[in-house]
C-alpha cells in the first residue's frame, strides 16, 4: 500500500518552479501511479497497471484553522464519489479524516459517522476513519449506493455538524451470460412479395445482465457476435444477420440496474428471384466473447419459408375511355400485375406490343420506383380521326430477373365530339391566373380538352393554393410523376425546380410548389409565382 504525502512544505520557490513555462498558473497536476508486483523496468512504461492521482495546487498559505468552515475541516473539496469494481474482494477504500487538518488543527475534535440504510455492505472504522466494503459487490444486483458522511467538529463548547453525500458506483465486469427473454429462441421468416435486399425477415432478442457501452461502438459490437451456422453457400450468400443493441433496465430487487438488449435480425443479403421456392431451418450462434463462463453462447433458430410468386395480370382485361379533345400527356390509367403494390425487390417492366393498326394513340411509361405502368395519350392527332374509335393493345409485363412474363388485353375507346380550340391559349394550363382564362383553354396533359381550376382556401401560405391544372387528380399532388416529368409545361406545380416568386414552400427535393400564397401560376422553363390577386392597380404604360 502506498501513502502519498508531502515530504517538505511547499514554498514560493516551489510554486514558481511548478508554473514556469506555462502561460497560466498551473492549478492541477496529474500523476500516474504505476503498480507492479516486481521491480520496475523502463520498458514497462506503457503496459503496467496504473492509476491516476490528481493534485489541485492552490497557491496560498495554509489558512488558520479558525478561518476554515466545518466543511473544509471535515472533507476535501472533491465529491465523495467512488468506483468499486464488482466481484472484487472486500477492503478499505477511503479515509475520511484529512491528514493535513489533523496535523494543523490539534485543538479541534473532528469525528465522523457514515449514515446508511440497513444491510449495506460497508463499514466505517472510527479509529482510523477508514471506510471499507465488507463483501464482493454484484453490479447486476445493485450498481449504486448513496450514503451520507456526517462530520462533527468540536472546539470547546462550540459544535458544528456537516453532512455530504457519500456515493459508491459499482463498475461492471462481464460476469453474466446471454439469456433469452421468455425463452423464445425461434422465429418464422417468410419471404413472399417483399424479396428485396435489406428486408428484415425476422428478429430475435437476447438479453445480457451486463452493460454494453455504445461507446466506442465497434469494440462493443465485436464483443457480441452473431454467426449463421450453415455450410450451404447459397444461404450464406442470400442471408445476413444484423445485430443492434441498446441499454435496458432490469429491476432484480426493486433497484434499477442497467443491462443490454441484443437484437439479431435475419436480413435478405440480396434480392430473391420470384421463382425461388424453399423451406429450411437457419441457425444463428450468438456468442458473448468476453464472458468466460460456460453458457457464453445461445443458438437462435429461424424457420425460413421462401414462397414462389406468380407474375400474372388479374383475369380481367383493361378498358380505358379517352376524350377526343384530350391533349398529349393526358394520363388515362394505370396497368398493374396482381399484388404489384406489395412487391419489393421485384423489377416488373410493362410494354405495349404495337397493334397492327394506324390508330396508335397511347403510350406506356413507368417510373424507376413505380410498380405499375402509366397509360397516357402519346399522339393526340389520332384522337381527331373519326375512324379511330376503339383500339386494342397487348400489354406485356416482364420480371427482369427471371425473365418470366405475362400478357393482357388493353382496349382504348375514343369518345366525345371534338370542339374548336381557343386561339391564343398557352401550351400550359399553369400559365392561367384566373378561373375564366383557365377553363376556356386547354394545355398539355388535359383529359377533356379544357384545363381545370383548383380553388384554394386562400389563407396564408397553404398547400391548398389556387391554381390552373390539366387534372386536379394528378396535379398538383406533390409528386412529379413519370408522365409529368416528360415536359415542364405539363405540371410545373409538381415539377418546377426554377425560381418561385412570392410566398411559397418548395416540394420534396426542392421540386415543385408544395405550398403557396393565393394563386400560383407558372411560365414553364421560367419562373413560377404565388401571389394574392387582391390589389387592383392600374399599371399604365404611357397611354392608359
Amino acid at each position, binding site marked *: 500500500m502506498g501513502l502519498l504525502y508531502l515530504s517538505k512544505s511547499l514554498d514560493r520557490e516551489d510554486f514558481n518552479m511548478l508554473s514556469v513555462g506555462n502561460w497560466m498558473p498551473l492549478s492541477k497536476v496529474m500523476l500516474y*501511479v504505476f503498480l507492479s508486483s516486481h521491480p520496475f523496468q523502463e520498458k514497462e512504461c506503457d503496459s503496467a497497471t496504473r492509476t491516476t492521482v490528481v493534485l*489541485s495546487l492552490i497557491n496560498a498559505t495554509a489558512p488558520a484553522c479558525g478561518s476554515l468552515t466545518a466543511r473544509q475541516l471535515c472533507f476535501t473539496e472533491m465529491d465523495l464519489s467512488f468506483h468499486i469494481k464488482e466481484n472484487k474482494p472486500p477492503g478499505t477504500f477511503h479515509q475520511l479524516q484529512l491528514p493535513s487538518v489533523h496535523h494543523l488543527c490539534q485543538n479541534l475534535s473532528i469525528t465522523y459517522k457514515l449514515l446508511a440504510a440497513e444491510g449495506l455492505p460497508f463499514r466505517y472504522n472510527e479509529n482510523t476513519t477508514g471506510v471499507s466494503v465488507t463483501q464482493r459487490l454484484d453490479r447486476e444486483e445493485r450498481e449504486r449506493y448513496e450514503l451520507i458522511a456526517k462530520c462533527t467538529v468540536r472546539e470547546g463548547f462550540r459544535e458544528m455538524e456537516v453532512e455530504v453525500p457519500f456515493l459508491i458506483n459499482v463498475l461492471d465486469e462481464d460476469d453474466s451470460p446471454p439469456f433469452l427473454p421468455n425463452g423464445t429462441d425461434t422465429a418464422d421468416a417468410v419471404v413472399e412479395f417483399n424479396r428485396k435486399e435489406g428486408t428484415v425477415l425476422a428478429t430475435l432478442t437476447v438479453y445480457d445482465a451486463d452493460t454494453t457501452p455504445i461507446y466506442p461502438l465497434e469494440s462493443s459490437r465485436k464483443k457480441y457476435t452473431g454467426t449463421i451456422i450453415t455450410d450451404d453457400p447459397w444461404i450464406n450468400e442470400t442471408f445476413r444477420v444484423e445485430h443492434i443493441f441498446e441499454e435496458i433496465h432490469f429491476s432484480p430487487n426493486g433497484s434499477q440496474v442497467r443491462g443490454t438488449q441484443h437484437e439479431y435480425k435475419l436480413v435478405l443479403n440480396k434480392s430473391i428471384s420470384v421463382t425461388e421456392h424453399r423451406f429450411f431451418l437457419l441457425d444463428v450462434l450468438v456468442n458473448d466473447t468476453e464472458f468466460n463462463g460456460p453458457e457464453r453462447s445461445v443458438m437462435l433458430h429461424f424457420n425460413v419459408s421462401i414462397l414462389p410468386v406468380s407474375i400474372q395480370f388479374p383475369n380481367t382485361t383493361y378498358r380505358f375511355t379517352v376524350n377526343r379533345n384530350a391533349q398529349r400527356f393526358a394520363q388515362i390509367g394505370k396497368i398493374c400485375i396482381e399484388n404489384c403494390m406489395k412487391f419489393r425487390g421485384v423489377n416488373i417492366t410493362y410494354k405495349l406490343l404495337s397493334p397492327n393498326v394506324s390508330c396508335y394513340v397511347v403510350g406506356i411509361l413507368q417510373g424507376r420506383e413505380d410498380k405499375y405502368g402509366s397509360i397516357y395519350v402519346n399522339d393526340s392527332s389520332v384522337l381527331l380521326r373519326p375512324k379511330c374509335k376503339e383500339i386494342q393493345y397487348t400489354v406485356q409485363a416482364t420480371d427482369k430477373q427471371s425473365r418470366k412474363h405475362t400478357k393482357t388485353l388493353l382496349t382504348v375507346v375514343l369518345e366525345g365530339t371534338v370542339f374548336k380550340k381557343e386561339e391564343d391559349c398557352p401550351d400550359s394550363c399553369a400559365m392561367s391566373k384566373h378561373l375564366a382564362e383557365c377553363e376556356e383553354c386547354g394545355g398539355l396533359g388535359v383529359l377533356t380538352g379544357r384545363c381545370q381550376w383548383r380553388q384554394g382556401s386562400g389563407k396564408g401560405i397553404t398547400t391548398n393554393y389556387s391554381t390552373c391544372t390539366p387534372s386536379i387528380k394528378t396535379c398538383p399532388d406533390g409528386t412529379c410523376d413519370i408522365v409529368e416529368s416528360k415536359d415542364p409545361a405539363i405540371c410545373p406545380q409538381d415539377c418546377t425546380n426554377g425560381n418561385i416568386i412570392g410566398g411559397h414552400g418548395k416540394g420534396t427535393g426542392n421540386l415543385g410548389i408544395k405550398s403557396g400564397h393565393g394563386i400560383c401560376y407558372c411560365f414553364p422553363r421560367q419562373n413560377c409565382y404565388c401571389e394574392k390577386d387582391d390589389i387592383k392597380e392600374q399599371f399604365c404604360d404611357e397611354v392608359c
Partner: protein
Amino acid sequence: MEINALGCRSASGRAFPAWPLISFLYTYLYMLLFFKPCGRWGWRRAFPLAGAAGGSPDITSWGCTKSRVESISWQCFALREEFYEASPYEPITSRLSDIFRLASIFSGMDPATNSKSNHCLDAAKACNLNDNCKRLRSGYISTCSREVSPTEFCSRRKCHKALRQFFDRVPSEFTYRLLFCSCKDQACAERRRQTIVPSCSYEDKEKPNCLDLRNVCRADHLCRSRLADFHANCQASFQSLTSCPGDNYQACLGSYTGLIGFDMTPNYVDASITSITISPWCSCKGSGNLEEECEKFLRDFTENPCLRNAIQAFGNGTDVSLSPKNPSPPITVPPKMEKSPALPDDINDSNTMYDTSIITTCTSIQEHGQKLNKSKEQSLCYSETQLTTDTMPDQKTFVDQKAASS
C-alpha cells in the same frame, strides 16, 4: 527522500536532478510539470521545462529506479484527453466589455415597451437592418433550411460552415443578442431556440453517446480547441461570485458561441422561460462503466452555473461587477459552501458535480431511496445507523486486500 521515476529517455540521456517534492513511503514518485512525446499517450505538445534551479529549460532523461518489494512508479505527466485541456486561445481579459454595455442599453430601453417587447425579435430586426449581419444570417438560414434530397433534409456540413461564418464574421453585438436574448414568453424563447436552425445544425435522428460525440469532436483539431476553450472559460468556479473563472462572462459566452457549427454544437433544449437548459445533442445512455464521466461531461452544459449566469447577465444587460451599478436580478449564487469542482479522475474530463455539500435537514431514504437530489438546499432524514469497521484507510478506488484481512 531522493525521488526518481521511470520515464522516457530524452535525446541527451541526462538524468534529471533530484526533486525533493513528493514521495511515497514505498513509492518513488516524481512530478513533472511538462511532458514530452513518449509512449502511446501521444502528448499533445511538448515544451521545454525549466531546470530545478530555473536554468535554461530542457527536458532531461527520467529513469525508474529499482525499489523494494513493491514499486509504484510514476511516469511522465500526461496532459492527455482525460483531463481538461488548456485553451489555445488568448484569454479575453475585459470583463465589462462593450457587448454587455450594449446589451444593457437594449434591455434597458423604455420599460413600458421593454416589458412587452420580444428581445429576440428585436435582435432579429437589428440584424436585418445591418447589411453584413443580414447577409450572413440569410446565408446560414437558407443553407440550413434547404432540402438536399427527398431523404436528406439538409446538408449539415454546409449548415455548420455557414453558422461558423456567421458567428466569426458578424460582430458579437448582433450575434449575442440573437443567441442570448432574454425572454418573458414562450414565443420569444422558441425563437431563441430556433436561432441556429436546430432541425439541421443540432438535432439528428438518434442521440449519440456524449463520450462518443466528445471523441468525434476531439478528432477535429478546431472542435477540440473550441471545446477546450469552453471548458477553460465556462468551467464553474466557486471561488468567484459569478461562478465564472475570473468573473469573465464575456469569455464564457465567446467560448460557447465558438462551439456552434461543430459536432459539439450546443443549444437550448426547450423553450422554457423559467430556466435555461443548454445541452449538446447527446445522452449518457449506454455509457457502461463510464456513465459517471459521461454525466459529468453533460453537466458541463446542462447544469453549468457560470454559463447560465453569463447568459442571464447578458440577457438582462447586467454584468455582475463586484459593485453592481443597479441591483441586478438574483443570479444563481453557488451553494453556501464554496467547493472547487471535483477534479475528474483520470478517466474523465468534465467539470464537477454541483451537488450540495451541506445537508442540514431531513428526508427519508429507503434502502434504494430516491437519488440524492442535487439541488441546493436538501432535506435528508436518515436512520442513524453508523457503519463501524476496523480496517485501514486507503486510496480511493484501489481495494487493499491485505488491509481487509488484517
